[in-house]
């Protein structure tokens, strides 16, 4: 189905199932431990051997010699696989760092060997018997050191290619002439996804055909990348990923676990399973790369932005992509004179890659503090300052508009609901016992990409509906919203729908990432259901456009036939994809929101507690309010982590992330999170897709950390521009104790 005109009324508008709060249909299997994750598939293939990954002990250089003799002779060991003996394999073009290295080493803990043994304990023990003689060379590990030399990248292509800065108007002249100016530099650290299920895979070969049970956000991408890696056609690869224990971007692309499992399985002639250990996730896999961002704002005295510049520096391995931290600034606020640029340093640290709202999250961490600082210079309320600089068109291309843009309402409704009017304009005004208390705000903004997505829907002789698509559910609630969509379209109760996901034998969906999953995958199911409805109508010689599907029946022209009766002679199938035409590119399909935070800063210790959070969002039709809310509060929680604690500390001498576990890379725990509230504004975006829905997984995290930082400033008067805002950065600047 080609979507190239605004969606008129359609069966989803009935909203008997879609849009209603619906408990997840995968709830019973997830809460009883019955949902099988990748490493747990004892049932799928017999005789599985265990693989254990050995990572490089140096960040850059070469392996001079690797001595595996002792390890090979260790009890239970079947094979030590290294780049030298693994047989032919390549690196997919979507992987910057090789997933099995040698002799050249590109980063610390890059895989250099897989130990395959009968048991996990044997494989792990044998790993300690491998002796590696390295020739270490000095690498580049310090981002700030390349501040003045890193070349410009990106440009209008968005990512990767070398390009000049993007300019609209004359920023320098306008900034020089502006009566009120801000010029500030912010830094965001390297961050780690740390989803609770580490990367894991089981691989089995049957002749030249490869099957992997893995944990991936993108089944079709995994097939493509495995095809490139193992130099075999995609038809010979099957990827299964029905349950994914979180991803946040870490599982968009294949990682070492699946490649090593497949190489190991090829080497020993039996299935092999590999899980990356928790400490290895930090340096072996990918992370959100650190940034240094300079923001300049020039305003008139009424608080209208006339000049805005956002220049970002990030680093990556040679050939890697930059953090697109300036992307939101290009669209979020008005201003005639604009400058955005990205520079990229080459660093010999582990590969930087997508993490929840890549670019947007760190970019907004900086921009939304800058907005707070400018509001203060102007003597304006920060909510009002943002409202004054709203734009209904793309500031770079004024003839391109947003399909929906309710930023102002998000800010206003949120301010009213949160009690924003009680916020003191000046910082360090409100004390509650030993705590300074303050409020902070930020905007939230993320585009909602239109992506092709396919599905197959079958009406079974029992009258039940079966949906099959390679879509994944990484905690986002895909199973349930897909079931809701099929139930609405076919006019059956939810419990008459079965959903099967995460199998590359099913039609390829958009997958889970970049807040493109929910809206596109359900639109694909919508398209397939339209086909199935046509097939049902045809079978009954009904006019498809006049057939109404309700209560398990199809009704037209005074005929009413149960779906079970229609399929009695055999199942009927509808298969289709949603595809998008030029309309989707002619407007910005965007989501907006506002975050409000109340933070308390301990007057003596600088300890920060986030007391209350509120998010107000406009993100198209909300398909399942309860799981959408969960996505929101989850991102708000991750935003608290970004604000207060999350930082991978770089050892700039040896080139690795020092704090490589959950005791030293801190993420929020129960005690860090108190009251969280979420409001969704009514919105059905007819330009977006037939579901009139958009995404919100990335929107939800944009701005959160800045709202926390702004609340801390309002509480205690200490402005910190280097994330995370740990208490050591507050302590010596706290107000004097009277």
């Amino acid at each position, binding site marked *: 189905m080609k979507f190239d005109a605004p969606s008129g009324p359609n069966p989803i508008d009935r909203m008997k199932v879609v849009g209603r709060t619906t*408990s*997840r249909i995968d*709830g*019973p299997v*997830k*809460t*009883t*431990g*019955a949902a*099988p*994750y990748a490493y747990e598939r*004892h049932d799928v293939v017999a005789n599985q051997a265990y693989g254990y990954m050995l990572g490089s002990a*140096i960040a850059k250089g070469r392996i001079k010699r690797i001595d595996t*003799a*002792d390890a090979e*002779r*260790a*009890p*239970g060991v079947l094979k030590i696989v290294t780049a030298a003996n693994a047989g032919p394999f390549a690196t997919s073009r979507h992987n910057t760092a090789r997933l099995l290295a040698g002799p050249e080493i590109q980063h610390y803990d890059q895989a250099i060997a897989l130990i395959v043994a009968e*048991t996990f*304990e*044997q494989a792990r*023990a044998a790993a300690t018997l491998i*002796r590696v*003689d390295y020739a*270490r060379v000095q690498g580049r590990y310090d981002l700030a050191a390349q501040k003045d030399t890193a070349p410009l990248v990106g440009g209008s292509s968005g990512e990767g290619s070398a390009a000049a800065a993007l300019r609209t108007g004359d920023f320098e002249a306008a900034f020089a002439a502006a009566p009120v100016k801000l010029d500030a530099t912010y830094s965001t650290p390297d961050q780690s*996804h*740390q*989803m*609770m*299920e*580490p990367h894991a895979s089981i691989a089995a070969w049957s002749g030249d055909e490869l099957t992997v049970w893995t944990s991936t956000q993108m089944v079709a991408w995994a097939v493509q990348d495995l095809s490139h890696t193992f130099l075999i056609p995609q038809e010979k690869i099957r990827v299964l990923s029905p*349950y994914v*224990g*979180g*991803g946040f971007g870490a599982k968009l692309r294949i990682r070492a676990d699946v490649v090593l499992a497949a190489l190991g399985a090829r080497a020993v002639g039996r299935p092999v399973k590999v899980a990356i*250990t*928790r400490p290895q996730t930090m340096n072996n896999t990918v992370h959100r790369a650190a940034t240094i961002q300079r923001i300049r704002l020039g305003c008139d005295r009424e608080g209208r932005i006339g000049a805005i510049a956002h220049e970002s520096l990030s680093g990556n391995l040679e050939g890697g992509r930059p953090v697109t931290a300036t992307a939101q600034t290009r669209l979020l606020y008005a201003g005639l004179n604009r400058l955005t640029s990205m520079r990229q340093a080459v660093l010999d640290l582990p590969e930087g890659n997508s993490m929840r709202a890549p670019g947007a999250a760190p970019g907004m961490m900086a921009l939304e503090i800058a907005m707070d600082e400018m509001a203060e210079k102007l003597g304006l309320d920060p909510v009002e300052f943002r409202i004054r600089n709203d734009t209904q068109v793309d500031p770079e291309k004024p003839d391109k508009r947003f399909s929906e843009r309710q930023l102002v309402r998000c800010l206003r409704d949120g301010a009213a609901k949160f009690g924003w009017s009680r916020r003191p304009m000046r910082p360090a005004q409100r004390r509650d016992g030993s705590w300074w208390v303050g409020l902070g705000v930020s905007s939230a903004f993320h585009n909602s990409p239109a992506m092709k997505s396919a599905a197959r829907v079958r009406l079974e002789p029992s009258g039940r509906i079966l949906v099959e698509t390679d879509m994944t559910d*990484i*905690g986002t*609630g895909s199973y349930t919203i897909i079931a809701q969509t099929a139930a609405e379209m076919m006019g059956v109760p939810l419990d008459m729908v079965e959903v099967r996901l995460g199998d590359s034998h099913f039609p390829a969906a958009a997958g889970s990432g970049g807040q493109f999953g929910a809206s596109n995958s359900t639109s694909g199911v919508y398209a397939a259901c339209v086909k199935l409805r046509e097939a049902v109508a045809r079978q009954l010689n009904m006019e498809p456009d006049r057939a109404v599907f309700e209560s398990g029946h199809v009704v037209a022209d005074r005929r009413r036939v149960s779906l079970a009766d229609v399929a009695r002679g055999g199942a009927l199938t509808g298969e289709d994809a949603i595809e998008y035409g030029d309309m989707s590119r002619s407007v910005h399909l965007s989501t907006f929101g506002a975050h409000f935070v109340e933070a308390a800063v301990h007057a003596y210790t600088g300890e920060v507690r986030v007391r209350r959070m509120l998010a107000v969002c406009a993100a198209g039709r909300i398909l399942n309010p*309860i799981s959408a*809310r*969960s996505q929101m*509060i*989850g991102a708000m*929680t*991750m935003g608290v982590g970004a604000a207060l604690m999350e930082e991978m500390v770089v050892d700039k*001498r040896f080139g690795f992330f020092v704090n490589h*576990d*959950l005791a030293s890379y801190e*993420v*929020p*725990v*129960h*005690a*860090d*999170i*108190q*009251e969280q509230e979420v409001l969704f504004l009514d919105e059905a975006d007819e330009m977006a897709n037939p579901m009139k829905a958009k995404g919100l997984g990335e929107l939800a995290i944009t701005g959160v950390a800045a709202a926390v930082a702004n609340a801390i400033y309002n509480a205690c008067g200490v402005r910190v521009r280097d994330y995370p805002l740990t208490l050591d950065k507050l302590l010596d600047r706290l107000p004097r104790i009277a």
Partner: protein
Amino acid sequence: MDDDRKLELSRRGLLVGSAAAAAATAVPSAGTQATPLRPNPATMPVSFEVNGTRYDLDLDTRTTLLDALREHLKLTGTKKGCDHGQCGACTVLVNGERINACLSLAVQHSGDAVTTIEGLGTIEQLHPMQAAFIKHDSYQCGYCTPGQICSAVAVLDEIKRGVPSHAQVDIAARPDPSDAELRERMSGNICRCGAYSNIVEAMAEVAGART
């Protein structure tokens, strides 16, 4: 000031030095003969009950309780999140008390009664905590969920038994299932999807504090 700087320099020097030493020990000396085949790992018989069923196992002594459950008994509801006691995904009940199954060896559990998520309830007959988690959407990806639920069940029992916590104002008073109390006691179970406030809602309902 000067002393501080000296200390800083010497500490850095020590770190660099020890890293270099570690690198040196990784270099095999020339002409070393291959060492003889190492002996097979020690195994030990161990018997314990899991979810009411007695198991007699002969295990590599290095096998954790977690891997005994997941890899030997194929009870994969208990999750491996970090394998070293930092995330809580492997929380199970041993003789009624919650522990991280990754932090003890299986052979330490001779005679113990272990309850895993599979033993709390089933799809057909959910434990009240499992039902409350579904109702309050107290999970997203589901990977930390079995550990959260086992922990949550144990926490309510600890509160009932009067086991004190850091969150109490008066350590001698009987603890209440207040939100602060639940959050404090659940903080060893990490949920990266961030379902914390929904988990507390589910627990409060089961505790009778809220519906």
